[in-house]
């Protein structure tokens, strides 16, 4: 018992002596921690799943050339009657000029993770008698993989985009009656056409995308779409997906291009996620307060119960500071004990519910991964919480008048 130092020795002994009391309060803290742990894990899993589903094969942010608009002939004064009926102009395939410079500038922007050039347009996929309307996405595969993880979406084949190679959605392959290694023709609206070999089949997360997407080499797409050397958009990945809007704002400020973030295009999803986060933050905060109050109240009672012992310790030479330390340490240890037990309990809950809760496709809604970071954070947080909860009881213990305490 001597190696631990006086305060820790006494604190541990007091906790052990308090058996039932100690067990109850550690149990209470553990349940609180388990619920927080569980909510956090489920929320992270569910939101990750939702975002993956919504964004699918979309980049976080897209940089496009500005839309061409028609200016009314008579503009300006509001009180003047408008003469013109403004007819929107049909949108041509617009392109970004001088994209390598823009790509570099975008890459340097704060919060941007990766940028890939894309030449994209609609075309017709033809194989034999079958023809389907498709979206051709021509890009540099290596750069594009850092923006959209196509490698995670490969169902069959290998990821490679040499000139003449194509990666297509699994539904499109079915519609065209094509299998891996087959060739098929893509014909653009401009009339040019090219033949591609199917190198991989992709599952992009939704039927619509799987039915329409054809990924090709950048140059092939450029010549197919009749825009050699130019691109139609830059696809951007950001570091923090929930902050895509901030990055989009920054990009908007520094370039004359049209910037769209996934948050804009999926506003409702983002709002739902945000509301979820606020609600769970609220729940977590209240659980934390309840746990802190529980620890504090048990320690307050413990100080009263141990009056005489505190008096004896003071009489044989323990300082006020040491008595303060004894009770603060009890709070810290209860917090840490509760956090470790609670993390274990939380992991059990997560593992149980990851088998029960499934998404629309029958896959687990969230995966069970041992997030030691989260355990560390929760444990540290619980230790601090225990310390704070113990401040009041510990001060009571330190202030006790030893003569009175011994008299009883």
């Amino acid at each position, binding site marked *: 018992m*001597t190696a631990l130092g006086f305060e820790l020795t006494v604190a541990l002994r007091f906790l052990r002596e308090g058996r039932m009391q100690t067990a109850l309060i550690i149990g209470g803290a553990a349940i609180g921690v388990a619920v927080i742990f569980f909510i956090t894990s489920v929320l992270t899993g569910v939101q990750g799943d939702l975002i993956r589903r919504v964004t699918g094969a979309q980049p976080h942010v897209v940089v496009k050339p500005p839309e061409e608009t028609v200016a009314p002939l008579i503009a300006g004064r509001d009180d003047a009657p408008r003469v013109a009926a403004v007819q929107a102009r049909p949108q041509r395939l617009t392109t970004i000029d001088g994209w390598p410079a823009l790509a570099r500038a975008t890459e340097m922007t704060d919060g941007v993770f990766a940028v890939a050039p894309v030449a994209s347009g609609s075309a017709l996929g033809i194989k034999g008698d079958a023809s389907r309307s498709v979206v051709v996405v021509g890009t540099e595969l290596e750069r594009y993989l850092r923006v959209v993880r196509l490698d995670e979406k490969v169902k069959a084949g290998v990821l490679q985009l040499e000139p003449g190679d194509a990666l297509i959605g699994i539904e499109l392959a079915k519609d065209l009656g094509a299998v891996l290694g087959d060739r098929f023709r893509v014909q653009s609206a401009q009339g040019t056409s090219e033949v591609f070999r199917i190198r991989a089949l992709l599952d992009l997360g939704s039927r619509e995308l799987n039915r329409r997407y054809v990924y090709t080499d950048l140059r092939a797409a450029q010549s197919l779409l009749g825009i050699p050397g130019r691109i139609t958009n830059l696809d951007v990945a950001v570091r923090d997906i929930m902050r895509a809007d901030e990055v989009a704002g920054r990009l908007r400020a520094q370039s004359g291009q049209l910037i769209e973030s996934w948050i804009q295009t999926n506003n409702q999803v983002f709002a739902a996620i945000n509301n979820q986060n606020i609600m769970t933050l609220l729940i977590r905060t209240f659980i934390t307060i309840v746990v802190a109050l529980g620890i504090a109240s048990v320690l307050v009672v413990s100080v009263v119960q141990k009056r005489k012992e505190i008096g004896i310790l003071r009489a044989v030479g323990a300082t006020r500071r040491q008595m303060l330390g004894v009770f603060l340490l009890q709070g810290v240890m209860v917090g840490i004990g509760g956090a470790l037990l609670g993390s274990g309990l939380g992991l059990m809950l997560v593992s149980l519910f990851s088998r029960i809760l499934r998404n629309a496709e029958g896959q687990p809604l969230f995966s069970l991964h041992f997030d030691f970071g989260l355990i560390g954070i929760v444990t540290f947080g619980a230790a601090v919480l225990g310390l704070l909860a113990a401040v009041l009881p510990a001060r009571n213990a330190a202030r006790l008048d030893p003569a009175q305490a011994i*008299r009883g």
Partner: protein
Amino acid sequence: MADDGALVRLQGLRKTYNEGLPNAEEVLHGIELAIQPGEFTALIGPSGSGKSTLLNILGLLERGSGGSYHLAGRDVTDFEDDERTHARHEMLGFIFQFHHLLPAFTALENVMLPGLIGHRRGRDGRSNARAAAGIRARAAELLDAVGLHEAYDKKPGELSGGMQQRVAIARALVRAPQLVLADEPTGNLDTHSSDSIFALLRQFNRERGTALLIVTHDPRLAARCDRIVELVDGRIAADQPNAVVVV
């Protein structure tokens, strides 16, 4: 005046409870008392005469309301709480009527506790461990001396009243204090246990030169001390060497 070799010197010591309130009550009225190193003194007097208050003040657990207190030549009258605690730890030992051992600790650990206090964890873990081993050895030696060689690892609840009080004596002596204050150390023991406890106190007084001040109601025990101080209504009514010490 204070530097006269006396271990304890109280001058004009007063104690008022609820000072400044309508129910203020002075329980000690100007006590003059000196205790020499190694003295073996009985403090007697009827209930309510202020014996316990005097003992608490001597033990630095309470402060006087007036007068002065010198302990080993130092004026401790106005010591702050930390200084009082430190002085208590360095120089004083306590034996209470109801032993007051910590129930969660074994007999040996109870005796070690005063030694562990202030035993800070230094950077050098080994010298620390050596110091701890020293405390343990001394606690074991004292338990042997009070005849509890078999009871090192027993909790207080497993010991008889007399054995508990022996543990408390060992605890009071573990830091080799200059003065041990005993508040009716045999108050709840039968005469047999009471005699052997008293004999132990006497033995430590003779062998180690520890001064003792023993509050007692038992005239038989008082008769076996070197000096008897009688407190009546907060005043020293009699203070004389015991002519015929019964041993």
